[in-house]
């Protein structure tokens, strides 16, 4: 639950940051309206967070947490209305992204998608949006990433969307996943230059993990020095059950 709180707060912070970029360029009133909408949202969350901390019983805490988790959904409609009323203002993009990232039940998120696809699909800011959305679990986020991957002219955004979709497909089962592997291979081939090549490099490591470090794969050989400088190999332990523990004393 704590984790959920943190995720939501992180998204809020990102949305605030995305909004701040535009305020310098665009004249009021749309940016001001957007700013006050964000402020209302933050206030609603802060109020409940305080109530949560000071709640007396676990039952009260549960109730407040449920309310807290509903806050984004209740604001999604307002953000969507704002975007529709200010369609020509750059903050409309931020508001639509906010809806897609925060609307967990998908109702408002689905309405935000056509608006964002129609107007902002090729926008340079879409690159950062796709990076942000890779951490979102909303179904609308996946739909937007899909649209970007398929038809955006912003190649960087396309690369990040492809990578994010691949990562979203890989569950925690630790098993191979053909679809995710195909998308990662695409990132490596078609988006080699994105982020100076770091995106492709990351995708290469992820693809190696799926293809060679999944459940059922024969473990790659490890030959290196131990802490005292004596070389040894994983193969020396064939015939034994082995727990490999990547660790550090921190």
């Amino acid at each position, binding site marked *: 639950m704590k984790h959920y709180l943190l995720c939501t707060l992180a998204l809020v912070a990102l949305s605030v940051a995305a909004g701040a970029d535009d305020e310098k360029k665009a004249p009021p009133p749309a940016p001001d309206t957007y700013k006050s909408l964000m402020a209302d949202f933050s206030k609603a969350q802060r109020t409940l967070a305080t109530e949560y901390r000071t709640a007396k019983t676990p039952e009260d805490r549960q109730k407040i947490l449920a309310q807290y988790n509903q806050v984004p959904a209740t604001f999604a409609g307002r953000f969507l209305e704002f975007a529709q009323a200010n369609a020509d203002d750059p903050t409309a993009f931020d508001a639509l992204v906010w809806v897609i990232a925060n609307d967990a039940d998908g109702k408002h998120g689905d309405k935000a998608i056509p608006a964002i696809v129609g107007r902002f699909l090729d926008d340079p800011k879409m690159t950062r949006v796709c990076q942000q959305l890779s951490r979102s679990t909303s179904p609308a986020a996946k739909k937007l990433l899909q649209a970007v991957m398929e038809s955006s002219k912003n190649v960087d955004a396309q690369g990040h969307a492809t990578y994010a979709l691949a990562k979203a497909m890989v569950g*925690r089962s*630790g098993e191979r996943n053909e679809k995710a592997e195909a998308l990662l291979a695409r990132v490596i081939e078609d988006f080699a230059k994105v982020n100076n090549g770091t995106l492709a490099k990351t995708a290469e*490591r*992820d693809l*190696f*993990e799926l293809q060679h*470090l*999944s*459940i*059922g*794969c*024969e*473990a*790659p050989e*490890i030959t*290196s*020095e*131990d*802490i*005292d*400088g004596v070389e*040894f190999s*994983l*193969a020396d*332990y*064939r*015939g*034994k*059950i*082995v*727990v*490999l*523990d*990547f*660790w*550090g*004393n*921190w």
Partner: protein
Amino acid sequence: MYPHERSLVKRLAGEPFALLGINSDRDREKLKEVLKKEEITWRSWWDGGSTHGPIATQWNVRGWPTVYVLDAKGVIRYKNVRGEAMDKAIDELMAEMKDGAT
């Protein structure tokens, strides 16, 4: 982690089992002191003094600790099992091995 690992190694002493570490600490000499102090008897590869060492990089490790459980054939059978789940995973592989031998 250390107490669980110590008891695991103790419990399975004499069995076909090994706990092997891949260590990403920066300071090798300090680490040697930790080994003594924490009674870490199992062997570890030294991954070059960084979390970006060659082994952790190849194995795409992004969080520590990361755990893999391999069977006697060297096949990866479990990933990131901890505590009781790790014990259970090892016991199942041990039972499987003994079934295969008879």
